[in-house]
């Protein structure tokens, strides 16, 4: 894959600190409706050169439509799209500096692997000899040179994925769009492929926009993770931001390992709010919320402690229903007083302190809770 490295014009870190960051993609409030259904509702996004961006969300949240608008396969009803600073909102796909990888790879079944990979260069009207040479190079670097004359129908899933990637990368686009690119692969292959793609992206400096519903993919790959729900962006930021500081109740509940509470502010003092919920009354850091307002907050499963014999400002009593063991984490599921589930993670291979069926007192520090400040979900 080294042949693609020369396209890198410098990693984001190497750019002079003074210059304004060059944007590979900018979305300005794009909107797309299908009849009564709003697929994308005012999405704005800025992607710097060489960023790995993951659009994360449940199915039907608008992430794929957003990607298709960037590709030009859909025309937004409203808003603007800029690629590399140039307005392309009305440009057709074949005039945009992008390439796209489709979920089922969309290889042309009637063409050989070499023809598939060379298609993009052929469309750019490159001389035949040059195309053949470049295709050989790229096939070699993707370790699929032996497949050159095979038809896609005879390839395995992993091989198809490589061919599709080679076909998309060969034209050295400014942005590579990936629509659930490893969703069609076997589970055993996914981790290897993810690592390869991450390395490829870092080496080439091409911006990747990766659409997925799988948060493991998003958090392990993305420099920037954009969480979408109901046609809107709920939160965007670095993976740690989204994991540690979910902005909305939706993000908190969509991301694994959060315990979400909803309630009403009853008291405020010294930067702390007392929130009355169906599961009890808890202290949460915050000051901007008026007394009587509805709020939601979350606490991560690993920040909860077992309070047997101790005392905490935030605590509740619950019955443990199941204990799941993942090797490094022991997850306890409790039934909260309000009927919801409470997750409590214990790290390390210690012996279980709480067994299923047992009642325990659990607690957490106010500073470990996150008050959701984004739009209420």
């Amino acid at each position, binding site marked *: 894959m080294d042949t693609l490295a020369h396209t890198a014009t410098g990693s984001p870190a190497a750019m002079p600190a003074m210059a304004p960051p060059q944007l590979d993609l900018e979305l300005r409030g794009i909107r797309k409706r299908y009849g009564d259904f709003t697929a994308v509702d005012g999405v704005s996004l800025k992607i710097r050169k060489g960023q790995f961006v993951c659009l994360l969300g449940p199915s039907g949240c608008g992430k794929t439509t957003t990607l298709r608008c960037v*590709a*030009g*396969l859909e025309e937004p009803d409203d808003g603007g799209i800029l690629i590399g600073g140039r307005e392309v909102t009305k440009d*057709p*796909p*074949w*005039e*945009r500096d*992008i*390439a*796209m990888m*489709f*979920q*089922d790879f*969309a*290889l*042309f*079944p*009637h063409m050989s692997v070499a023809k598939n990979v060379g*298609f*993009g260069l052929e*469309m*750019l009207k490159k001389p035949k000899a040059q195309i053949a040479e470049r295709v050989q190079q790229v096939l070699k670097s993707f370790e699929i040179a032996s497949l050159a004359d095979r*038809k*896609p*129908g005879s390839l395995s899933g992993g091989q198809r994925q490589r061919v599709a990637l080679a*076909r*998309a990368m060969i*034209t050295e686009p400014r942005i590579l*769009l990936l629509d659930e690119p490893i969703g069609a692969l076997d589970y055993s292959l996914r981790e290897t492929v993810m690592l390869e793609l991450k390395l490829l992206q870092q080496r080439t400096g091409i911006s990747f926009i990766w659409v997925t519903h799988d948060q493991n993919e998003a958090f392990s790959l993305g420099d920037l993770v954009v969480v979408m729900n109901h046609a809107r962006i709920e939160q965007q930021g670095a993976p740690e931001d989204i994991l540690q500081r979910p902005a909305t109740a939706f993000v908190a509940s969509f991301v694994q390992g959060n315990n979400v509470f909803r309630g009403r502010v009853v008291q405020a003092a010294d930067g702390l709010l007392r929130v009355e919920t169906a599961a009890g009354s808890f202290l949460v850091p915050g000051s901007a919320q008026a007394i009587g307002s509805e709020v939601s907050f979350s606490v991560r499963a690993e920040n909860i402690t077992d309070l047997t014999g101790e005392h905490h400002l935030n605590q509740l009593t619950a019955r443990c229903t199941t204990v799941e063991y993942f090797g490094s984490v022991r997850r306890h599921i409790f039934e909260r007083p309000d009927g919801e589930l409470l997750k409590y993670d214990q790290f390390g291979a210690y012996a279980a302190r709480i067994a299923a069926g047992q009642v325990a007192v659990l607690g957490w520090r106010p500073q470990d809770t996150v008050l959701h400040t984004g739009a209420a979900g």
Partner: protein
Amino acid sequence: MSTIRVRSAASYWLAVPAAIWMLGVVVVPILLLGWVSLWGGRSFSPASPLTFDNYTKFFANKTYLQLVLTTVTHTVGLMAVTGVIGYAIAYFMTMKVRHSAWRLVLFLAFVVPFWTSALIRGIAWVPFLGVNGVINQALMFTGATHSPIEAFLYSRFGISMAQASLYTMMAAGPVIYMLNSIAPQLREAAMTLKAPPLVVFWRIVLPLTLPGVVIGQVLVFLNVMADFATVATVGGNKHAMLPNLVLLFYEGSQHRAASVVAVLLMACMLIGVVAAMKVVDIRRLGAER
């Protein structure tokens, strides 16, 4: 496992009645025609000596040779016309009609006439094409022409018009099927690889629908080659194609000559089908997708 055991005697015997029926009514009679076409002598009997006289007599007649040529060129012309129109209709119905309800309505509107008699549909063209026919009346009413055009009824042109209406959907049907089996992502992938729509059509859509085009062309070819009824109704007695010659010789009790024409007709059709099979392996349809 199912209600029939694989390679069982039962499966064999279940196929026997249909096989005997088809052999006895289709295969044997056609082979018989080949035999009869070689009969010499004066009497029409299996005892006749075998000779190529009937063929030499047929090929010695320039009119008949001309007729073979006319039939083939007429058929090829019709294949071209129905192929292009049929493809356009198929493309519209699969790619451009978004609502499935509309697609169904269009499909029914095209298919329903197939359940009615082709003979009646051929006859329906007679009041249309005549000197006082609907087309001429319309042309004269709009002032496109002052005197009626006689070229419609009892002409090759009129025959072609009627046959185009009868057989275009045969060309379109298999294309519709193949177009439906192309995943939309293939066209989109080509577009993101910098292919404008015309190139997408030429490089992706057309090659993938080629088997459908060929099958449609074979259907039109077989039907037009054998269609003597439309030629007789719309073309009157002035025009004939090869199959009409079979009828003509039969009515003149020249059974051996009729057999010669039948064998030639069958040979033309076999050549056509084999040529088509060379282009597209029909048995491998649907593989690799």
